[in-house]
Every structure is written in C-alpha cells, then in structure tokens.
C-alpha cells in the first residue's frame, strides 16, 4: 500500500516518517516514530489516553489521520520534561500520587498542561471540566485534580 511521507516537529525535533493514509496519528507515533507514551484506550476519541498537543491544541491523536499532521508541531508526554527536568505537573503528579496504574497519566498531563497554558489559575470546577475528556478508572480523579491545583500554584509562584 502507498505510504505518505510526513514531516513534523515532535517534541522540538524535526521528525519525518511514512504512514498509510488510513493510519491514525496515534499509531504512527507509536509504531513508526517509536513514541509509545500516548496510549490507545479506545480509538474513538472517548478516553483521552492518546492526547497530544497538535499545534498547541489538545487533540485525541487516535482521531487524526497521520498525513493530517504534515507540517504540524506536536508535543507528546515524552517532550514534557525539559532536558531531564520534570514539568511541575509531572512533579506534582508524582508527589501527589495522582496515578495508580499510570495508563491515563500521559493524557492527563497533556490535557492539564493545555489548561494551565491558557488559564494559570483555574478553579476546581474548571479543572474538572478541562479534564472531563480524559478517563481514569483507578483514582476517582481526586488526587489528579489536587495535583493540577498544586502545579498551577507552583507555576504561578515561579
């Protein structure tokens, strides 16, 4: 089958890859680029485990065809830490025990980063709605919401 050549910037680096037109960006990232941080929980846009930032917008990468990402700037969970220094969200998720199994964590971190980039001082309700596209079956969300609150506070103080 014919494969399309796709040129992107992923986590700050120029990355080229080939993918069939029907391949999801999620599968291309995982199988072709080797970035398996984004997860497939559903493949239908309902769980958020595959969340990435596509040109700064939170996107379910399972709903995007790989060729649609040509020319795009992509951030995945692997690009969240800066030269080994964790993003405050990552640090607060660790300190606040905001993960149990951890399969949903990459998606939550991306969705929370997108929220805090736009709104540095969200209310609990705003956090809950901003994360409502991400499913977590383990935590009951309590510690996730608290970790985002804590990260927001730390980032405001910086």
């Amino acid at each position: 089958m014919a494969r399309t050549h796709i040129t992107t910037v992923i986590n700050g680096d120029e990355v080229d890859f080939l993918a069939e037109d029907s391949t999801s960006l999620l599968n291309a990232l995982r199988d072709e680029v080797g970035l398996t941080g984004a997860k497939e929980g559903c493949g239908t846009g309902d769980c958020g485990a595959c969340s990435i930032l596509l040109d700064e917008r939170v996107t379910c990468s399972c709903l995007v065809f790989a060729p649609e990402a040509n020319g795009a700037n992509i951030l995945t969970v692997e690009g969240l830490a800066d030269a080994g220094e964790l993003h405050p969200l990552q640090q607060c998720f660790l300190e606040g025990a905001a993960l149990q199994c951890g399969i949903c964590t990459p998606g939550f971190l991306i969705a929370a980063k997108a929220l805090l980039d736009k709104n540095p001082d969200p209310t609990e309700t705003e956090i809950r709605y901003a994360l409502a596209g991400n499913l977590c079956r383990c935590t009951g969300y309590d510690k996730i919401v608290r970790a985002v609150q804590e990260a927001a506070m730390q980032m405001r103080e910086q």
Partner: protein
Amino acid sequence: MAITEENPGYKWVGTRPIRPDGLDKVTGKAQFGADLTLPGMLFGKVVRSPHAHARILSIDTSAAESMLGVKAVITGSDFPDLVANGAHPMAIDVSHNAIARDKVLYEGHVVAAVAATTRELAEAAAKAVEVSYEVLPHVLTVDEAMADNAPLLHEGMITKGVDPAPDQPSNIASRIVHERGDLEQGFGEAEVVVEREFTTKPVHQGYIEPHAAVADANSDGRANIWCSSQGHFQMRADTASVLGVSQGTLKVTAAEIGGGFGGKTVIYLEPIAVRLSQRAGRPVKLVMDRDEVFRATGPTSGTRIKVKMGVSNDGKLTAAEVWMAFEAGAYAGSPVGAAGMTVIAAYDIPHFLVEGYDVVCNKPRVAAYRAPGAPMAAFAVESVLDELARSIGMDPIDLRLANAAVEGTQASYGPKFPRIGFVETLEAIKEHPNYTAELGPNQGRGVAAGFWFNAGMNSSATVHINENGTATVVTGSPDIGGSRQSMALMAAEELGIPYESIKPVVADTETVGFTDVTGGSRVTLATGAAVVDACRIVIEDLRARAAKTWDVEVDQVEWVDGQAQHVDGSQPPLSLDALAAKSGRTGGPISANASLNARGVGAAFSTQVCDVEVDPETGVTRVVRYLTAQDAGRAISPDYVEGQMQGGVVQGIGWGLNEEYVHDQNGNMENPSFLDYRMPVASDLPMIECCIVEVPNPAHPYGVRGVGEVGIVPPMAALGNAIKDATGVRLTDLPMTPIKVLEALNEQSD
C-alpha cells in the same frame, strides 16, 4: 485520620514518598502491554462471533490465507481437544472461552485469528475468514435462562449443590446455601419486616488499557509472552493448558498494567498469540479494541436479588432471608458464592437463610471485578437496612452499630471473626462533620457499609543486598496501583536503610518464585509478608557475619537502624554498606528468598456516607459530598491506600448511576464504547474524602489487611439511600438513571 492504635514509631511504613516506578509513568517511558515491538513482529487480529448463540458449521480460511502478507490463520481446531483429553471441567471452559470449538456462546466469542505484516492487513484478513453459523435461540438474563424450557447453553449441565441431583440439564450451574437458626422464629420476633427485590446489570471493570499480548515462539517449542496481566504465573498456567504444553516451556513477563480490577486475571489473547507465532515463525502482537474489550472480556454479573429482613423495635436484627441469582455469562462461575458469603456477614443475625444460583447465559463469561459478588449483594441488604432504620426511626449508623460483627462474632459463612474494625469505621463516619453537615434543597444523605474477606494465597520474594549496601527486592506481583512502593517501604523498615536505597522489581516467571495474581487485595499482605520474611533472613545472615567478624556469639549482635551493633557496645557498629562491601570475605553474596502461603488474612470493612442532589425536573442525581472510612489494618503507603478507597468509590458511583451493558434482542451489545458505556469523569464528581481506620491485623507483621476491594461494596446502596432521603423514592434497579428516578418520582406523586 482515625488511628485506633498508636503507630509504633515506624520510620518508613506509613509515609508518603514518591513511588519507585513513578518517573517512568509520568515521562511516558513505562512499557505497558501494547508498547512492546520486536524485530519482525506481526500484527494479529481475532475473528469474533456476531451471534449470541450459534453452532459453527464451517470455517473457510482459504481466502485469508492466500492474501499477500498474511502469515498465519488459526481456528479452534489448532488447539488440543481438552474434552477428549479428560481435562478438568474448569480447564475445558477456559480453553473453550479462549477459542470456540463447535458452538459460540456469546457475541464476541473468538472463532479464529490471523497474523499479518501490518495492522491493516490483519484486519482485512480477519474479515476474509468465512464462518457459517446455525443461529440458535439465546438467553440473556437470569430470568430467561432459568425459565422452563429455556434454550440450553451446555446440554450436559446438571445443577450442583442440589440434593437429589436434578435429572434434567438446565442453565443453572450450581446452588449455594448458608443457613442458621429458625427463620420463622426470627421473623416472629421482629417488630418490622421489610422485603424488597433488586436487579443489577452487568458492568465492566473499565480498565483504560485494553488487553494486549506479544508472543515469540521458538521452533524448539519454547515461547516468550509479554502481556498486561494481574498475574503472569496464572497466565502461564492457563496458556499452557489451552495450548497443551508444559508450563516450563513458557516464559511470561508482566508488562506494566493499565488497570485490571480483577478483569486481567484471566487469559484471552495469550494462547492465540503463541499459536499464531508458532505457525508464522515470527513474533505476534495482539491488542484488543475497546469494542472487543466490552463484548468479550469482563464484565461482572447482572443479578436478581430478593431480601427480607426483620428488626425489633430496639434495633436488633432478628432474621434475614436472601435469594440471589447471578449471571455467569457463557460458562459456570459467577461470583454468587462470594456474594452468598458476604451478603450478611457484616452483621450478627441469629436466624438466616441465604440461597444463591449460578446461572449461565449468552453473554461474555464474567470475570472478577473488585470484591466479586459483594457489591450487588450489599446494594440489596444495605438498602433494606436503610428501610428498617427508617421504619423504626433509628439513625442508620446506630442500627448498624447495634448489629455489627465484632471480634468473636460467628460470621454467617462459618468462621469466627478475629480482630476486625467494622465498628471503628462506623464510628469514624458518625463523628465526621460530613455526617451532620447541613443539606440543601433536593439533597439527601445515605449511609452504607461493606465487607470483603481479602485473600492471602501464594507469594514469593527475593532480597539481594548489592555490593554498596542498597537492596533489590524482587517479587512476582504485577504493580497495578503502587505496590512497589509498599514493598520498598516495608523492606526499608526491616533493613533499616533509606527507602531510596531499595529497588523493588517485578520479575518474570523464571526469575522469582511462584506468585498468585495481584487480586483479592492480597499483594501488600501476602507478597509484603514474603518481602518481610526475606528481609529477616537477610538480617539473620548479617548478624551472623558481624558476629564472625567480631568473634562473638550471634546473640551478642543486634540489627538496629541498618547496622549490626554489639549488645554492650563493645564494638564499633558495622553498617549494611560495610558488611556488603566485605561480603566476599564473610561467606559470599548476601541474598535470601522467602515463599509462603499467607495465613491470617484480615477482613476489610468500609462505611461510607454520600450526599446527593436530585434534580426533580430531570431526575439527574449529582453527588455533592462523599466520605469513605475503611479499615486498612495498617496503611503501609497511605497515598495508595487512599487511592484504592477513592477509586473503588468512584467505580461504585458509576455502577450505581450510569453503567450497564445494554443488549438488543439478538443478544448484541448496543453500547460497546466509552461514549455509550459512560464511566464517571472528573466533572461528575466531588472530592472523595478518605478516613483511613487502622485496626491492625494480628496475623501480619505490620498489621496489613488489604485495601483494594471493599471500597466498591457500599456505594450503590449509599447512593440509593441518599436518593431515598432526598426524594422519598426507593430505587431497586441499577443503574439509577435519571429516567428511572423521574419515573419513580412521577409514580410517587400519582
């Protein structure tokens, strides 16, 4: 936090450091089931039945086999016939559930599988497999399955547990009974008797990670399997049985696991992946879609439960009569047994009869789901208790306190309870400000309690002291929610070295001793006890080495704060680092194994109070406040104990308000997606407040009971009781959707 016994000054146990595997999980490095890629790896796809019940007439694989890039196609005939081999009935069921032979028993039942060079090709090849079926009449619920002349799933199924044995087959696999005293006398002594009937729907465990397995078979008969599982030793045993090979030929490595809740204690993809890999001569990856996860794995049982209970005016329960029927799905083995044991176990009731039926029907075979069987049973009994409390004008906590099982109470299922903390959880709720907080308009408050046994079972651990005095702690328990941290905390406490000096590792089936599944809330208890035992053997060895160095008797040496000390202080202490550095000269490397079958499990109790607001216009129930108190025995890792409590509660809220399997009349699931099978999201919920109660389990070195499961037992009744309090209507059919609430409200006002 309520602590009923002073923390005896632990340095590490009970603290909240960062989990050892946390960094990998916040940076995307952790390798979950679907993340592994091997050189030359093929993608597999499973062919599933579109029918709920049908005879397989023929399977034509020729078109699929002739496609370019398709490397293997297999069907049930590629697996040994365990019936002919005289295997155990349970092994036969596991095998037939993994891949159908002559009949398919539910929509989604595996009939064939393919492996091809790409994902897309595998999907096309799976579609090209032609299966012809003779569709048979099906039964979907316990009511349909138990009806006279119901179509049979298994022509030879004679109900067990009935004397004399029935002479006709049926869909009832077994009957269980627990009884004590004299029901008539008990109900005669009651002032008020309440009788209600409840129904619940199948619900899925809902782990976010679909099942995934990679198999790499060698031509000499050996195979490696990587899979997302709650117990790789169990996977090895079941996969070997389905394949008809010796366990020793399979090596299973547990990937990081993206949730399980009981649903990943059973095999689905593993034997299929191995057979495909053998046929193709290349590694094969199989990953389920969400749709397949819903249609073919999990769920837990739909049920019908009748409860009749009597109470005296002073709040003493006099009698209970319970009748339960549980859907098992396609093969025997619903959790009705556990339901029967737990249903009234939290209370001391002199006269009772509990009767339960395990009923097969044309739905996926049920799998364990967090405290299997107990939540539905508790929904029924805890709702009736609420009615009883209301009818005698008693506070619902006081009613439970008046009847709560305590140390020495003979549990309804047989044994006497050792020390337990049920009363303490009730009191914790009663004393909490939430219990008396003011309620707004359309709001109501509900209380419910729950019991779960917790499990012990087999675990192994190995502790290696590294040359620099750090320690590697190896176990066979997949870490599903932070257990590496509790292993490390207990090891740090025992060895007297910093938590950061401990590296906990989950090893494959060839690197650590046999270990049962991560389930039954057993890992911190049983695997934890094995870790403690191994550490203690290491400490004995360290003391002996210090004694030798000092040329004194071993009993002159104590192990304190990570160093060997002479009892009278006559020698400078020898630290673990120093002893490790010299180990080559004192007997070689320092390392110990411990394996055990954990005895003395500690029963778990949870009491929960929930406040809801019910919109009288729409019937929507919103949870506005939630508090859970649970006896952990000892919280080794309080962060992750709270996590278990909160997660269990929220799964229960989903079960209570939203979640259900919906089937059409052909037996096809109508909502196999997260869009239509709606689990709670962050915006549906308030914070879940936790109160960890610690009544230590006398049988565990640190008092651990196990915390994973009991939290899901009370929520459905707590919600139902809160809705009753808010609206005056009693809902008895789960889930308590807006439409059902509205209907009940309308009926009430008529």
